[in-house]
């Protein structure tokens, strides 16, 4: 989405080089345009429309939904229930904490650390590390979800087997600290992206900078702080915004906890799923979806504006 937007203007200037007449070009674009409007734009407005009704899947309001105006939104933001467990506000706060802990601190920091560390290790170690981290990223979500579920199980889980074999007491992680379980899970799962991004960013720094620093007797931390970090600042911003968006929308923790116990892991995406497809309240679910879309739009706008600033001096 971003690259397209950025490249629009140069393309327009290069119209003379086009292979097709503008009419033929438009004709070729039409099928794709119809598909996009059918499957993206129509549902988009449909969801907004449904969010103003009390439509459900079961019961009376399934056949005869009524227009209820802002009632769904007012219910979501009802101050009397907003912060209650299992309500929209609760899952919004939970999601914010989740993004802070697992995306910003977990993925970005861990990715940065890994990327910095593998700059100096022998190539074999670097490649092995990369393989492991990337494996966590590319495996199918369902497989990962069930593997972690089995790993953490209190009675027969691998983690407790390891812990008890070295003399530690077993833990009941999925029940006692479900939030931290999904934080660790998401960190583990997504650190690869940050690591790869920062890795390529660090690689793009000319080695002579570091060599000069070595001559001046700089410590590793000084090199990281004064050379590495400032030169990859743009990458860090890109990374933070992307993983924030992804983590905000992620649904995979559902496979581990079902959003429970007692809503303690009900992220906004899971809350949305529950309201729409377990409680079958399509109207309210659509309202949640619209709010999520707006939040994502805000992320995207921030990202685009930063992207533009970054590109501006070059063009």
């Amino acid at each position, binding site marked *: 989405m971003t690259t397209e937007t950025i490249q629009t203007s140069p393309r327009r200037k290069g119209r003379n080089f086009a292979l097709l007449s503008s009419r033929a070009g438009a004709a070729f674009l039409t099928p794709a345009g119809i598909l996009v409007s059918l499957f993206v734009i129509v549902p988009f407005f449909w969801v907004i429309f449904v969010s103003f009704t009390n439509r*459900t*899947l*079961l*019961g*009376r309001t*399934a*056949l005869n939904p009524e227009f209820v105006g802002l009632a769904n939104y007012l*219910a979501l933001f009802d101050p*009397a*229930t907003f912060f*209650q*467990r*299992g309500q929209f506000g609760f899952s919004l706060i939970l999601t914010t904490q989740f993004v802070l802990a697992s995306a910003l601190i977990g993925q970005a920091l861990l990715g940065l650390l890994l990327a910095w560390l593998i700059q100096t290790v022998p190539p074999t170690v670097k490649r092995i590390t990369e393989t492991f981290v990337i494996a966590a990223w590319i495996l199918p979500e369902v497989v990962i979800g069930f593997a972690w579920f089995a790993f953490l199980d*209190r009675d027969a889980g691998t983690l407790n087997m390891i812990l008890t074999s070295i003399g530690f007491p077993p833990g*009941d992680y*999925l*029940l006692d600290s479900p939030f931290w379980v999904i934080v660790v899970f998401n960190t583990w799962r997504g650190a690869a992206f940050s690591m790869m991004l920062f890795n390529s960013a660090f690689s793009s720094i000319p080695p002579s900078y570091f060599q000069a620093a070595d001559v001046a007797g700089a410590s590793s931390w000084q090199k990281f702080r004064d050379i590495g970090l400032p030169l990859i600042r743009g990458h860090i911003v890109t990374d933070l915004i992307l993983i924030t968006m992804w983590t905000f929308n992620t649904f995979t923790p559902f496979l581990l*906890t*079902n959003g*429970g*116990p*007692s809503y303690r892991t009900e992220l906004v995406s899971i809350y949305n799923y529950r309201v729409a*497809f*377990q*409680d*079958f309240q399509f109207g309210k679910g659509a309202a949640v979806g619209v709010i999520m879309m707006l939040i994502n739009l805000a992320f995207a706008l921030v990202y685009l504006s930063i992207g533009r600033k970054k590109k501006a001096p070059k063009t």
Partner: protein
Amino acid sequence: MSNRLRSLALGLVGATALATPAFAVDLDITCRCVIGGVNSATAEWLEESVIPAFEAANPDISVTLNQFGGEDAQLTQQLALDFSTGAGPDITGFDGFLIPSFAEGGLLKSLDELVGDDYANWEGWEHISPGIRSILSYEGETYGVGLGTDVRMLFVRTDLLDQAGIDAASWQPSSWDDVLDAARKLKESGVEAPFQLNAGVAMGEATTMQGYWMALLGTGEGVTDAEGKYIVESKGILDTLDLYKTVYVDEGLGDQRAQLLADGRNRSFANFRDGKTAMLVEGDWFYRAVTSPGAEFEVADRDNVMDWKKMPAQEPGAGWNGQDFVSVSGGTGYVINPNTDSPQEAWQFLAFMMSQEQMTAFQDYQPGIRSRSDVPIPDSPFLTETSQALLPLTTARPNDANYNSVSQEIQRMTEAVVSGELSPEEAMAQYKSAVIAIVGEENTVSLL
């Protein structure tokens, strides 16, 4: 197209045609049943008895069984989405309490509308009582055929009770205190989680029917009052939630994890099988299918270590209808997908499945109380005793389109208490506002 390509294409067409024999009609039937897994007997009965016999009698109809291995709530979710988009199996197993909300939502058609005369003239209706027929009916219309009904009770492990110094054979609790006292003694004797009363969201309807409702009836109340209004505040609700709190939070008499984790119900079955739980409130299905020989949660030496007791009211005489003991009944059956291409053939199969001959054959796979009066109850002391003792005491869920949503709020309310997140008063306040949002304030009542 080259000759080689052409012959390849022709060959492919030919092979495809050969691979699918030309049946006039293909029918799909889904049930929450898996051979070797949940409701294995039902799946075996369909695969081994019903389908072969039906196909032999109707050579132009082919029937395929889809074994659904997920939870009840997941099947409900799938059926709701399937039926609303025109997809789904032609015939499916269905829990009676869902009929009103599906029917109101336009996701089911009555058999009258879908099938017509063949349905109305079916010989089976003469042998199915109006009460049983009403389980799969709503506002005078019939939507499916019931398989049977059930009752709920307190299952006990006599070996553990005896160990704890309670004479299991003669013991019959007459109040909640009796149950709690026994649980405390069992706990002292080393039983990990002596008493299990279902709660929580993960168990779905099992929480409402086999847990909350069984306790609530003991306080003399129901989920709705005599006029059908939902009770959202009452002493009965508070006492019930306090009972949960005593069992799971204050005294640790039950396995809290089994109520909170996603696979909780199976955990509670496993606890009973492994002797970690001595008293469990469940439906007769627990005896007929869950713990039966060969099942996953088979209780070894069942006839010597397992027994059942009537679920007592809070105090003698304090129960629903002034009763000393309580029970609640539900029923399952089969419905036809309103979007099916072949409603007549689907009905033909359903009627065949529910014929006296096939229902009697089902008793060999899993003895039970069948919906047809011309199917003899097998010589099973358990079924005879429980149906005689509990059917007169039992009640049923409201036949109301909002019930399903209210039931989910009940599950949330109990989970909040069992997990220790909320006090009974706070949980009830949340329940009140949630139910008012579902049914409207005019359809609720406060008894406080």
